[in-house]
C-alpha cells in the first residue's frame, strides 16, 4: 500500500524544485496523487523544495487535511460546526457512532471512514456532509451510509 516510485513522485513535484514556498502545494500534490502522505514522501518534498525534513514535517502536522495513512475507499466528512449543530449534526454523529463509525477514531468499517469537518459552506441545508467529495445536504446517518455504500461498492 505504501509503495510508490520515488522517481514518479519527483517528476510530479518537478515544478516545485528549489521553491521553499511550495511545501504546502507539494503536500497537496502528493496527497492527491497517493491519497495520503507516506513518511518517505516527506523526504522527497524536502529534497525537491530544498528545505529540511523538519520544515516539511512541521507543515504536514499543522494542517488537519493531511493523512499519514491511506484513506478508506469511502471517506465521509460530516460538518459539526454551529449551523449544522442547529440542524441536528450532533445526532447524526451519535447515530453514526452507534453503527461503528466514530468521527474521533476515524476507524474504517467496511471501507467507510467517517470524519468531522468544521463548516462545508452549506449551512442553510445542514446537516451538511461530503461523501467522497460529493456534497450531501439535510444529511442523516442513513442517507450518508447509503451514499457511502453506493460509492464503496
Amino acid at each position, binding site marked *: 500500500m505504501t509503495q510508490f516510485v520515488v522517481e514518479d513522485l519527483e517528476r510530479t513535484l518537478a515544478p516545485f524544485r528549489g521553491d*521553499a*514556498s*511550495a*511545501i*504546502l*502545494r507539494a*503536500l*497537496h500534490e502528493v496527497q492527491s496523487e497517493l491519497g495520503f502522505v507516506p513518511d518517505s514522501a516527506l523526504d522527497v518534498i524536502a529534497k525537491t*523544495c530544498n528545505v529540511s525534513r523538519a*520544515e516539511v514535517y*512541521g*507543515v504536514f502536522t*499543522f*494542517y*488537519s*487535511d*493531511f493523512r499519514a495513512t491511506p484513506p478508506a475507499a469511502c471517506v465521509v466528512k460530516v460538518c459539526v*460546526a*454551529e*449551523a*449544522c*449543530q*442547529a*440542524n441536528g449534526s450532533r445526532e447524526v454523529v451519535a447515530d453514526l457512532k452507534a453503527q461503528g463509525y466514530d468521527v474521533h477514531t476515524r476507524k474504517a468499517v467496511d471501507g467507510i471512514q467517517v470524519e468531522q*469537518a*468544521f*463548516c*462545508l*459552506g*452549506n*449551512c*442553510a*441545508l*445542514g446537516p*451538511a456532509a461530503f461523501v467522497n*467529495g*460529493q*456534497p*450531501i*445536504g*439535510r444529511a442523516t446517518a442513513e442517507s450518508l451510509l447509503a451514499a457511502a455504500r453506493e460509492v464503496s461498492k
Partner: protein
Amino acid sequence: MKVFVPCDSAALSVGADSVARAIEEIATVKGLDVTVVRNGSRGMLWLEPLVEVETSAGRVGYANVSANAVATLIDSGMLEGAQLPASIGIVDNHEWLTRQNRVTFARVGISDPQCITEYESLGGWAGLRKALTMTGEDVVADVTDSGLRGRGGAGFPAGIKWKTVVNATADQKYVCCNADEGDSGTFADRMLMEGDPFTLIEGMTIAGIAVGATRGFIYIRSEYPHAITAMNTAIAKAQEKGFLGDNVDGSGKEFHLDVRVGAGSYVCGEETAMLESLEGKRGTVRPKPPIPALVGLFGKPTIINNVMTLAAVPMIMAQGAAAYQALGHEKSRGTQVFQLAGNIKQGGIVEIDFGITLGDLIDGFGAGTHTGKPIKTVQIGGPLGAYVGTEAWPTPMAYESLAATGAMLGHGGIVVFDDSVNMAAQARFAMEFCAEESCGKCTPCRIGSTRGVEVIDRIVAGDEQSKNLELLEDLCEVMTDGSLCAMGGLTPLPVRSALKLFPADFNIVSGGK
C-alpha cells in the same frame, strides 16, 4: 427552450445534478428541443433544486424538484411554464428577491457562471475598463469615497488599505483574496466564486492595476472543491480572452492570478496566518506591526481583502462611488450579503442595504425555524460571534450598531437555533473549537481554551459552581486581553453571551454554592 438547473454545490447537495440529467434524458427521448443551462443559485436555498423554465412571461420556477419527479412534471407542462404545485411563479417577481438589493450578487443565479460572453453582456468588465482609463490614485480614491469596508469581519475601510499599498514603493506588490470563509453559517464567498467567478477576477484585477501589483492569489479553503474548480476554470478563460496576463484588455498593464488551496485550518483565515500559508508554511499568526499592506506576502506590500470586498469593486467602478455610498446605514455603506443559516425555514442569501433589523431578516426573510419550534437564540458573525436572544430583534444590522450591543457582524452569517439547543453545550463547543484551531502562539488561546472546556464541564456538573464561574470569568478576561489575534481574543464572546443569556442551561443554582 432553456431550462436552468443550478450548479451551486448547495443545490448539488440536494440532487441538482441528477435533476439536470433527468431533464436532458427525457428531452432526448421525447425529441424536445431543450437546453439545460447550469446557472448559479438564486440563493433561495430552501427551494433547491430550483428549476427555472424560460417562457415569454419570464423564468418560471419549480421548487424542490427531485429526479424522480421530473417525468411527471414535464408531462404536466413544466416546460411550458404550467402552474403546478411545485411552481413558485416568475422567479424574478418572487418577494424574497424583489425585497433585496442585489449589487454584489446581481449576476449570481442568472446565467452560466462560466460563460465569459454572457458575463460581458450582463455588465461584466465595465468596471475594469473604466479603471483602466484612470490613474491608480483615482481608483483608490473612488474606493475610499464609496465607503466600502472589509467584509471579512473587521470592517476596515478598503480604500485606506489600498492607499497604503499604492503609496508604498517596492519591486513587487501583491493582491491576496481571502477566500478561507471558515465561519460556520457563512457561504457567500463560496456562492459568488461558484456562481459569478469573473466578478471576483475583475475586482482583483482592478485592485492590482490600481496599486501596481502584478500578481494576485486567491486563498480558497480545501472544503470548497467546487469553488476551487470554478475559479481555476474562470481564470483560464479570463487569461485566454486577455482579461488577465501581460496585457490586461489591451491596456499594456500586467496582472496574473492564481488559486492557492488551504488544508483544513480555521486560523488560516486570519490574514497574517493566511500569508504564512500562502508562503507554504504552518499557518501561525504574525504580530502586527508591520502591517501586511507594507510587509505582506514574501515581505512585500500586499492588499488583503475578503471575497465580498473585492467583488463589490467592479460595481463601484462601473456605477460610481456615489451610487454605492448612497446605500447603507450610518458608517456602514453599501449592501451586506447576509447569510441565513442553521435552523431556519427559508435559508440563503439576503443582500440588502445595511440597517435592516435582525428581526426582519429572521422573521421577514427567514420565516422562523425549519423545525417549526420557537427560536431560542441566534449566533451572529461566526464561531467567534455572540449569541443573542429575540430581545436583539430591533437591532439594525450594521457594524457600529451591533458593536454597541456587544455583538459583531463578522462576515454576515446568522445562525438560528430553536429551543432544543443547550447553551452550555454551545459555550463548551466554542472553547473546544478554539483549542482545536488555535495556531499555538499564545498561551491563553492554546491552553486557556482547554481549561475553558474543563471549567464549563465543572460548572454544569454543579462542582464548586461559584468558584468555577469566577474562574471562567478570569479565563475569559485573560483570553480577551492576552491573545494576539481574534481567535483567542473573541472566543469569550460566544461563551460569555451564552452564560449571560441562558444561565439555566449551565445548571446555575442562584447564589451558587
